[in-house]
């Protein structure tokens, strides 16, 4: 059952991320599941970046954290990350004492660019693992189009070099998995949106959400959608709210600093009842913090951003597949309940890639509660469930008055206490409707046997590492998918059966644990926290868990 990891480390600008994807695709076609994680700094050239490509016959949830094949392009990278090599791992370096690969020479001889280094690596791997070279060629033709030739040549040179130098081979048998699309979390969010009917995406560039913007911009024409890079985040969400008001399903995306700036507009969306989906790809905070590193530190923010009180929904996918699914649900909720829905991702989820089997060909509905005529249209009609029927400008006979100041049913401004209270009560009823409806939605995933003693609770991208780390341990795992509405009853129920509850999260204060306490009244003192910007490695996490459960 091969479970092999390839580490490629070098400087920004040396094509590491792209290279890792090409390697991943090759082994994907060789019959394996793939997980790729990218660790990079916030500079354009230099630094010490790396990617890990995990190649496994069992679907991986995260990076392994430790490499079988370790390619360092520079000495400093080699030294810094040598502790990420498995005991039996093979290391490669340019010009040092270990297995040497003369990247520079090969590049020069082939008139190639520095960012093509990893094509040499793939050639090396092809020889060493017995990955058929035709697959390498095939992938490169697909990937590099008219630049494939050079890359194939580089791969061939790498292949030849290690063969000639009798590097020890480590064959991997052909796997039996069908080739699957390998996509980043951000790709899955994008495609989820598109599949459920998204027509507009607006954003301002920010790591690690820019890749969502870039992906959608690149494919906008093929998808028939409009993608806007606005002058700032406030403009992005206001454009979104405008388009949504005029009937287009819309998503906006940003990360911490930009999400902060959207607060006023999120309150507008909630109070004026104009739906919008907001993606927050969390990164290391506070303030500018660590733009390219991961963190789960906007949980409370997502629950409270935007002044005043209005219904909201916060969803937290835990894998690339769930990113797709939860984005679809985000749209369905936002447009049904006419309120802001936040999708909480993080850098690790959004910028790691995975081979996925997602039901892309299915159809996903976006139901709206339409106005069915009968009298004048009232944008904020008082209804039992708090949801007022929708009609859009441009529809004949309709006048849609949308209003950010407190208003009456017809949408006109009011501050008369009785009218105000009616409208506030309507929005509260809507929040209650949401809470009730969510009893029948999938709010959590539970893995294990509820009557076993140890329970881990987590939310978001930590899922992958947790699932890996508890394999074979007497530990159950409760994943929380919806932070708002919070599944109070089911969480309480499962917690009540556990002897030992541990919350695992990637922030410094234990926000999820605090949320659980605030919703259920149960204090969870066992917390495994990580907040150095790096995601949990399953092996390390397993040790932490073992320690905590004693």
């Amino acid at each position: 059952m091969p479970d092999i990891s390839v580490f490629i480390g070098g400087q920004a600008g040396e094509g590491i991320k792209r290279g890792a994807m090409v390697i991943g695709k090759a082994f994907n076609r060789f019959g394996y599941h793939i997980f790729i994680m990218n660790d990079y700094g916030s500079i354009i050239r230099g630094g010490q970046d790396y990617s890990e490509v995990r190649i496994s016959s069992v679907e991986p949830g995260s990076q392994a954290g430790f490499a079988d094949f370790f390619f360092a392009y520079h000495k400093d990278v080699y030294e810094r990350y040598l502790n990420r090599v498995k005991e039996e791992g093979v290391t490669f370096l340019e010009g040092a004492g270990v297995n040497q690969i003369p990247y520079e020479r090969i590049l020069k001889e082939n008139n190639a660019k520095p960012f093509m280094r990893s094509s040499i690596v793939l050639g090396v791997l092809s020889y060493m693992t017995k990955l058929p070279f035709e697959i390498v060629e095939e992938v490169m033709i697909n990937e590099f189009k008219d630049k494939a030739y050079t890359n194939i040549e580089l791969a061939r040179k790498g292949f030849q070099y290690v063969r000639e130098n009798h590097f020890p081979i480590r064959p991997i048998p052909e796997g039996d998995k069908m080739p699957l699309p390998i996509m980043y979390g951000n790709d899955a969010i994008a495609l989820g949106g598109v599949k459920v009917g998204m027509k507009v995406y607006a954003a301002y560039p920010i790591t690690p959400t820019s890749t969502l913007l870039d992906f959608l911009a690149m494919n906008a024409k093929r998808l028939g959608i409009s993608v806007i890079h606005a002058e700032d985040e406030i403009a992005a969400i206001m454009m979104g709210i405008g388009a949504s008001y005029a009937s287009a399903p819309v998503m906006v995306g940003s990360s911490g600093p930009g999400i902060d700036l959207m607060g006023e507009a999120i309150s507008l969306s909630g109070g004026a009842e104009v739906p919008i989906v907001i993606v927050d790809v969390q990164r290391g905070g506070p303030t500018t913090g660590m733009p390219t590193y991961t963190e789960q530190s906007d949980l409370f923010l997502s629950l409270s951003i935007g002044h005043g009180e209005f219904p909201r929904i916060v969803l937290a996918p835990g894998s690339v597949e769930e990113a797709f699914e939860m984005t679809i649900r985000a749209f369905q909720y936002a447009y049904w309940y006419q309120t802001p829905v936040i999708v909480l991702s993080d850098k690790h989820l959004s910028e790691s890639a995975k081979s996925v089997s997602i039901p892309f060909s299915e159809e996903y509905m976006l139901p709206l509660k339409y106005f069915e005529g009968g009298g004048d249209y009232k944008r904020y009609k008082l209804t039992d469930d708090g949801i007022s029927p929708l009609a859009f400008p441009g529809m004949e006979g309709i006048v849609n008055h949308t209003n950010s100041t407190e208003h009456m049913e017809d949408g006109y401004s009011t501050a008369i206490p009785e009218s105000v209270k009616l409208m506030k009560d309507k929005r509260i009823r809507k929040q209650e409707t949401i809470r009730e409806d969510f009893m029948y939605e999938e709010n959590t995933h539970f893995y294990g046997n509820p009557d076993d003693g140890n329970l881990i609770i987590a939310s978001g991208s930590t899922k992958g590492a947790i699932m890996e780390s508890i394999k074979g341990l007497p530990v159950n795992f409760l994943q929380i998918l919806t932070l708002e509405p919070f599944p109070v009853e089911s969480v309480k129920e499962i917690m009540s059966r556990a002897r030992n509850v541990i919350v695992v999260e990637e922030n410094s204060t234990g926000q999820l644990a605090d949320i659980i306490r605030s919703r259920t009244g149960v204090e969870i003192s066992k917390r495994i926290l990580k907040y150095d910007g790096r995601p949990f490695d399953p092996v390390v996490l397993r040790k932490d868990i073992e320690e905590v459960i004693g």
Partner: protein
Amino acid sequence: MSITTEKKIQWCPGCGNFGIYNAFKSVLEKNIDEGRLKKENIVILSGIGCYGYITNYYDINSFHATHGRIPPLATGIKLANPSLSVIAFVGDGDAYAEGMSHTIHAARRNTDIKLIVHDNGVYGLTTGQFTPTSPRGFKGRSTPFGNVENPINPITLMLVARATFVARGFCGDIKHLEYILERAIFHKGFSFVDILQPCVTFNDTYSFYRSRVYKLEDTDYRTDQYEKAILKSLEFDDRIPIGIFYEKEEESFEEAIRGTHNYFYERQVPDISEIVREMI
């Protein structure tokens, strides 16, 4: 057809907003009656300020939204549904303070929206602070000893920002204002109209403007000369030109972005299989 509502108009008696309200009403009613505009395809927007209540007074699709953020809101609406005429009312505090950046960016994009600025040189609704168009020395509540900032010149600014329709109106001259508003509404692309609007309560400039304004249309001024427009716009002292400074046709932002799509009608989901295949 009347486009007004029965809501009681709550501006101070004599407020310049009445002139704008009336001029806009006439232009709309005339053009709806004569079939050039469809009522259901008009959307009016406003931010927060005294002027902002204007959306309460018309029986037309509207979005009374947040302070300073109207240009991107308007852009989004036009993007989603190209059939809509999107007309945005904003204040000078709104357009040039909180929303300065959006105003400029909407202009340079040539978004097909109409931006109508109620420029009273003061924050009316928050009871009388200076705005970016208040003169130096203006004594408002936040500057009781006189404002120390240089005012901006909205016309020059919008020309520099590449707005394709730039005009100044005066609400004391309703006929002329109607002429400008009508041209602005039917201009294809970004229309900008700064309206000199006295605030009788906090900045009563009626006589100041009355004695100074003159109409570009009464001179041999041409509206198709960019550099001359910039120079003309610098005139703001004893004589203040009103009228259209500049007009030009250009592809709009939404057209460029959206192409031939109209999301108001389109609900179908694209085929993503090719994109997914490329990921294998």
